[in-house]
């Protein structure tokens, strides 16, 4: 667990970057630090590995004050990922990933062998090993950055806007892969972002900072969307927070109507809704594992206002209309 105990950072000149921050980042969880620019989120992150020294207060890792640890040794035990990846341009991808293990005294050969495995883990083939960072796309560089941070298997990872510099499609893909990776690894992660959607999507917990370094609210994404502490948080999480809150509700409990009027193939899989010019696309299907947000989206996009549920075999097994969903949500509230 990483603990901020009443941490203050005032820069020479008097500007307060972090104002009496007390915060706990639970072990094995991803805590997203989110807020507008200049809110002290990056400064807070960088105090964990002592890149920034607090003016007062303490930061503890599992009860031990980081100020008492040897700087370099502390940092070698904390993975670090930044925007644009910050790779070493003069080293191959493989040697970039091998950096920290080599610093820790592994032979280059050992470190490279382990690095090669890690590359595959972050979705890069061995073909990339011998390339230089300049030969990679932004998304690929960011994967290498993640692999480099993971190379020494540190229990803690600090990530500063790691996905901000890539285009939305690649970001989406990196998010998915990253969540899968984190599910396996269970690192204690502090992730800084200015993007509340990213924070909500990736964070087990989200800490919202307001300008001049004060913490506005900490909670699970669901708590934040359902009960923002004040107007600032409400504004920051966005006006569509009601709709987005649905992404935390499973569709498993949602009643469905029997399949009727939908064109099916021989195996019972949906083909489309009948139309004058042949079947009209259903716009996708959902399963019991999806969220209510997916159902709402499908119902909105469907040509007939009805979302189609399918079973594990892909066969249609139920329908949900706008009204059904609205009734279900209304019933849940009362």
């Amino acid at each position: 667990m990483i603990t901020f105990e009443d941490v203050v950072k005032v820069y020479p000149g008097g500007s307060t970057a972090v104002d009496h921050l007390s915060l706990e980042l639970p072990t094995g969880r991803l805590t997203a630090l989110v807020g507008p620019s200049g809110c002290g989120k990056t400064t807070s992150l960088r105090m964990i590995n002592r890149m920034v020294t607090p003016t007062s207060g303490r930061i503890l890792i599992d009860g031990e004050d980081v100020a008492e640890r040897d700087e370099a040794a502390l940092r070698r035990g904390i993975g670090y990922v930044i925007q644009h990846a910050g790779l070493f341009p003069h080293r191959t991808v493989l040697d970039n990933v091998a950096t920290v293990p080599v610093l820790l005294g592994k032979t280059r050969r050992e470190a490279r062998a382990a690095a090669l495995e890690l590359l595959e883990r972050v979705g890069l083939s061995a073909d990339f090993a011998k390339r230089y960072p300049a030969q990679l796309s932004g998304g690929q560089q960011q994967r290498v950055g993640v692999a480099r941070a993971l190379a020494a298997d540190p229990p803690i990872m600090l990530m500063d806007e790691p996905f901000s510099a890539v285009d939305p499609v690649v970001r989406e893909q990196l998010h998915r892969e990253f969540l899968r990776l984190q599910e396996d690894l269970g690192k204690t992660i502090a992730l800084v972002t200015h993007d509340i959607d990213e924070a909500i999507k990736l964070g087990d917990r989200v800490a919202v900072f307001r300008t001049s370094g004060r913490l506005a609210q900490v909670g699970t994404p669901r708590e934040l969307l359902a009960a923002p502490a004040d107007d600032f948080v409400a504004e920051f999480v966005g006006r569509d927070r009601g709709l987005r809150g649905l992404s935390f509700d499973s569709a498993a409990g949602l009643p469905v109507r029997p399949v009727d009027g939908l064109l099916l193939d021989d195996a019972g899989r949906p083909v489309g809704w009948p139309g004058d010019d042949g079947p009209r696309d259903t716009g996708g299907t959902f399963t019991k594992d999806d969220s209510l947000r997916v159902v709402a989206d499908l119902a909105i996009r469907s040509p007939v206002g009805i979302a189609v549920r399918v079973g594990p075999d892909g066969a249609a097994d139920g329908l949900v209309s706008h009204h059904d969903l609205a009734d279900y949500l209304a019933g849940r509230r009362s």
Partner: protein
Amino acid sequence: MIEYLRNNADTVWLALQEHVWLALLPVLFGFVIALPVGYLGVRFPVLYHPLVNTCGVLYSIPSLALFVFLPVVLGTKVLSPVNIVVALTIYTVALLARTVADGLRSVDPVVVQAATAMGYRRVRRLTGVELPMALPVILAGLRVATVSNISLVSVGALIGIGGLGQLFTRGFQLFYIEPILVGIVLSVLLAGLADLIIVLVQRAVTPWTRAV
């Protein structure tokens, strides 16, 4: 020219050898001195501008004046090659110290911070990250310093030591063009060869600069 070479092969060969070590020894000394001096100009930013200015002033001292002046300061004989070596070392430091500083300053601070955050200590970060990344700039400066030294050695002939420069003085004294031509051609070839060697070394040690 060929005939002159044939008749004076020994003289020319000796002059060429002298020229090589008179020019290259100062490059070596100068480089070794410039590395820490240039680093100080980056490590302590207040020193950077004084460093740049001092280098500029040193480089602007006329070489002949320095050759004549150094024996007074160093207590060496006027005809000692040490004077040439020291003078050219000063020029090399003047060129390279600034280049080393600029090279180190050209390193992306984000990458340096990333290195620090991964647990590099200062010295290893310098040798493992900052210097390698500064190499393209430093080696470009080394090319300039080397070629500049090879041409400056000739001036030493005016005080009696100067490698191929002695061919120039002899030609002038005898109103004889052949040794001058031989001296010019060999100087240029030598400079070209030295430059080529540095370029090849640069290609070998900075493969990443060509990776796009």
